[in-house]
């Protein structure tokens, strides 16, 4: 049992390493295929400067040599200097942007889980009821209202018309974390509500629930103490891909609300041809996705005895 689990993890890690190599190669090829280099600017730089810069950053070497040199350094944890911001290393930039991105993602996920599970449970209590219709209708709306529509609308209403909350920033002014969090959470909240409802509906028709009901337990107690654990399995499975989705979400939300996180860095880095920063961020996000997928699988194993048996 344990060794099977270890073997599975080892296998996943091995394929993760391969995958990261692939990501690195594809990203490297893509950014070097992009027209315009990191040092191009409106004012033409002289040939001497360009040559000196290219030599300094080894951009004058053949691409494969550059790639392997990069890999060698990256394996030692050195992701190189930023081209756009000389005097900063890429790691330094990522560390500077990471707290805001992680914080935003965590709050959004927490909020989505909280509201999603509660709304899903309420809906599942009496399928077809007004509460069910309402929450599922809202959930559908949440899925169809992308962050770049919802965000500006929230800003318009709460920031501009009502002046209740700041319109941008992160951790600068009191309450400026609300709008970005809600914007990012909405879609996930909707999915989680749906999954919870579907899972609960299925669980509630199981024999053990009927037994519990006949014992006279209250509906709420049944849901909370018995049905929810099984019903949350699909939610857990969803969280893996959801974490990956949070990245895409953070691109948009960080752009709308001017949040200094790594999502916004990424867009800027792509525009600025900051090769090393693009590479590091892509690898970082890929590693994050792989990690969360693995984590979701492990949690599912822990929650679901049947999967555990299948493994051994």
């Amino acid at each position, binding site marked *: 049992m344990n060794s099977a689990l270890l073997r599975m993890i080892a296998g996943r890690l091995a394929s993760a390493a391969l995958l990261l190599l692939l990501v690195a190669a594809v990203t490297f090829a893509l950014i070097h295929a*992009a*027209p*315009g*280099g990191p*040092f*191009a*600017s*409106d*004012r*033409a*730089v*002289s040939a*001497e*400067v360009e*040559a*000196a*810069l290219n030599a*300094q950053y080894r951009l004058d070497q053949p691409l494969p040599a550059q790639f392997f040199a990069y890999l060698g350094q990256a394996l030692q944890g050195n992701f190189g*200097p930023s081209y*756009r*911001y*000389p*005097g*900063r*290393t890429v790691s*330094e*930039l990522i560390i*500077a*942007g990471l707290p805001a991105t992680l914080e935003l993602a965590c*709050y959004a996920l*927490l909020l989505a889980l*909280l509201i999603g599970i*509660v709304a899903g449970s309420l809906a599942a209590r009496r399928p077809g009821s007004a509460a069910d219709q309402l929450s599922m209708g809202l959930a559908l709306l949440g899925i169809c209202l992308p962050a770049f529509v919802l965000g500006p609308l929230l800003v318009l209403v709460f*920031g*501009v018309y009502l*002046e*209740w*909350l*700041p*319109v*941008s920033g992160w951790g*600068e*002014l*009191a*309450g*400026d*974390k*609300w709008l970005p*969090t809600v914007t990012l959470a909405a879609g996930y909240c909707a999915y989680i509500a749906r999954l919870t409802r579907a899972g609960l509906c299925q669980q509630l028709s199981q024999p053990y629930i009927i037994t519990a009901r006949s014992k006279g337990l*209250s509906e*709420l*107690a049944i849901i*909370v103490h018995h049905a929810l654990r099984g019903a949350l399995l699909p939610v857990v499975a969803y969280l893996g891909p959801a974490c990956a989705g949070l990245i895409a979400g953070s691109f948009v939300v960080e752009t709308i609300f*001017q949040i*200094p996180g790594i999502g*916004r*860095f990424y867009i800027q880095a792509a*525009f*600025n*041809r900051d090769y090393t920063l693009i590479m590091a961020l892509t690898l970082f996000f890929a590693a994050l996705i792989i990690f969360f997928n693995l984590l979701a699988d492990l949690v599912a194993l822990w929650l679901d005895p049947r999967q555990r048996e299948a493994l051994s």
Partner: protein
Amino acid sequence: MLLYRAQRCAAVLAIVALLGACSPAERRADLGSEQGVLHWGNASEPQSLDPHIANGVPEQKILSALFEGLVGKDPQTLAPIPAGASHWQVSDDGLRYRFFLRPQARWSNGDAVTAEDYRWAWWRALQPQLGNPFATLLFVIAGAQQYWQQQHGDFDQVGIRVLDRLTLEVELAHPSEHFLQLLDMPTLYPLHRASIERHGNPSARASRWTHPGNLVSNGPFRLRQWQINRRITVEKNPHYWEAQSVALNQIVFYPTENITTEERLFRAGQLHYSYDVPVDKLRYYQRYHPEQLSLAPYLGSYFYRFNTRRPELADARVRRALAMAIDRQLITEQVLRAGQLPAFAMTPPNTAGYYPPATAPQQLRFDPAAARALLAAAGYPNGEGLPSLEILYNTQEEHRKVAVAIQQMWKQHLNVDATLHNQEWKVYLDTERRGDYQIARASWIGDYVDARNFLEIWLCASDNNRTGWCDPEFDRILLEALPRANSTAQRHQLLQQAEQRLLDGLPLLPIYTYTSKHLIHPDLRGYSANLLNQPLFKRLWLQPHNELGDE
């Protein structure tokens, strides 16, 4: 049961606490006015605070607070004013400048600022490894260009001499009207050698000497804090020679990338100064808060490049027809709406007393009939036979607006079809440099106030020309005749001749002259707009408006 409810309540409370309670937003600017902290919208995260690496306007603003050159500029007239040097002498032939440094000038760590600090900094500015985009500015100094091009490795041959601790002599390659203006540019600031060498090779780009705690500067402010993509804080430098008359305690620079957001921050009382103003907000401020809106002429030209290597644009008549079919007045008044001036030449009017040829506005006037006639004469009656044109611009709302307007005008007046092609900045630069375009948006912002700075990009060999247009006579005037001019009047006359040749050749389509647009908090005093859009931070002060009545 009860426990569960308590858990849920706790979770809600936790989230509320984490996100921060909802409260009426505090007004950072008001607080700042009381404490002497200036909140300054500064467009973007600076690439670097190394004066020899940074090349953007936002970087220049911060550097001008941190450093000081030999000679400054009057914030209103831009005339040279004493700064690092208390006074200077110029030889009769205009080639030799002798600067007398202030004995009381200090670095932010207390060290004295010496003539050697300037010489060393200029040596560093000429190290190609740094990739200094403004190194060419130093070429006005005798021997600097040869040193840069590594024709000799001996810096002593460059005309910079330390006569004593506080006297610096500079020998120019040729007389220059704008040399004193250059001394106020980051590339010519002095640097503190010891603190830079402490962080490794002085000509390495990746040095950390510009980080807070490491950076030693000689200006009115010193670096206090640098939070990436959030803010840069500078505080009053107690060692500055004129520290007692610096009013501000701190300046906080914000990378306000999105101008819509910046304007909202300003309106919410979070900024004293905005880097820009969204076009659609101009009317609101003009109507309700004209005192907060600052619109001023800015030394920059907005134009289109014609790729004269393309057969369809090789005929100057076609280019002229296109130039005469656009109604610049309509563009400046309806699209841009910030007091921009329609431009009929390359150089903005009144550039240090210089005016483009007086006939230019007539030559490129909006005249659809004449434009059609020109086009017909070139073999494209009613636009027939002319291949579809493509306007290339870098992705930005304002460029798109102008391009769309011009596209419509060409269609309407000339029956010429144009498509728009936007490319993201770096791709656009690459495309333009490779000459893979027909018509490309462009602009030129003056580094210093001098017409030559605008005309020299059209030299045959200039990397900034990019149109394939080359006029030997134009080159001759700028390169041979101009340096021998011995009076301002004669100089202006030569510049006008050159500009006339440029307008006859017309590798460009002048569109408008820039204005700088800012929102300025009523508490901010001492600010005056100028042609270079360059504030003098040490002369600014904040007056909380609840004290206005006392005035």
